[in-house]
């Protein structure tokens, strides 16, 4: 039986979209308001989907307390109420668009030991969301 379990998490953070590879005017043109110099914030929602066999003794793919603790340690604690550009080392010199954020969250969670990470979906707002399934997946979706 092919089962995927998905859990939703939330964190709030600020970011500024600015590429060192573009000039000042070009940054303004490409990123618009998102290039404003002091950044701005979002209430991000992160959906984490994992798969694996169901343990007959527990009825679970993974104990949610294990998944929650892992996501809390790897993503929520380091990102919540932070300025992503400055306070998350991976975004030094790397634009923290939600595309890049989604990939970064996937990479931080891929070693979850209790189940296979299938998908990370990040909602930047209720109207924008991004999904990443790793490099080898997603082509058939």
């Amino acid at each position, binding site marked *: 039986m*092919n089962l995927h379990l998905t859990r939703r998490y939330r964190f709030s953070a600020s970011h500024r979209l600015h590429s060192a590879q573009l000039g000042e005017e070009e940054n303004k043109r490409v990123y618009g308001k998102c290039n404003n110099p002091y950044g701005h914030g979002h209430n991000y929602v992160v959906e984490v989907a994992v798969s694996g066999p*169901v343990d007959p003794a527990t009825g*679970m*793919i993974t104990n949610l307390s294990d998944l929650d603790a892992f996501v809390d340690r790897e993503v929520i604690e380091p990102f919540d109420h932070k300025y992503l550009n400055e306070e998350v080392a991976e975004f030094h010199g790397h634009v923290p668009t939600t595309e890049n954020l989604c990939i970064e969250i996937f990479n931080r969670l891929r070693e979850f030991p209790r189940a296979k990470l299938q998908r990370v979906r990040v909602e930047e707002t209720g109207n924008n969301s991004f999904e990443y399934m790793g490099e080898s997946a997603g082509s*058939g979706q």
Partner: protein
Amino acid sequence: MVYLTRKIEFSASHLYHNPAFSAEENRRVFGKCNNPHGHGHNYVLEVTVAGDPDPATGMVLDLKELKDILQREVTDRMDHRFLNYEVPELSGRIPTCENIATVIWNLLESKITQGHLHRVRLYETPDLFVDCYGNGTGDAR
């Protein structure tokens, strides 16, 4: 191929308890979900059927028929029930979201004769859901 999804809701109670575990082990593994009198959720079920529209009707399947199947197989069986004691398909299994979604898949799969069952998505809360694809991969085909 078109994917048609119908949503229903039902409310039910459950508890997690494995008789092979000691009281302490049950408490450690299942936490609050092991409270002896159980607790409940408003479950939301999304059932997705894949198929090509019948040229004569323009429909993958008659929604009224799907509605009746869901009423008979799921709502009548599970709504306002204590899942551990009142749903025989779950007896001897921990009624986790994973196991309930699997039972629902097994109840529905053979009843859907126009198109085929593609996915059963069961929300236990808005922040936790399980997708069951039977033995399929979940890829759009």
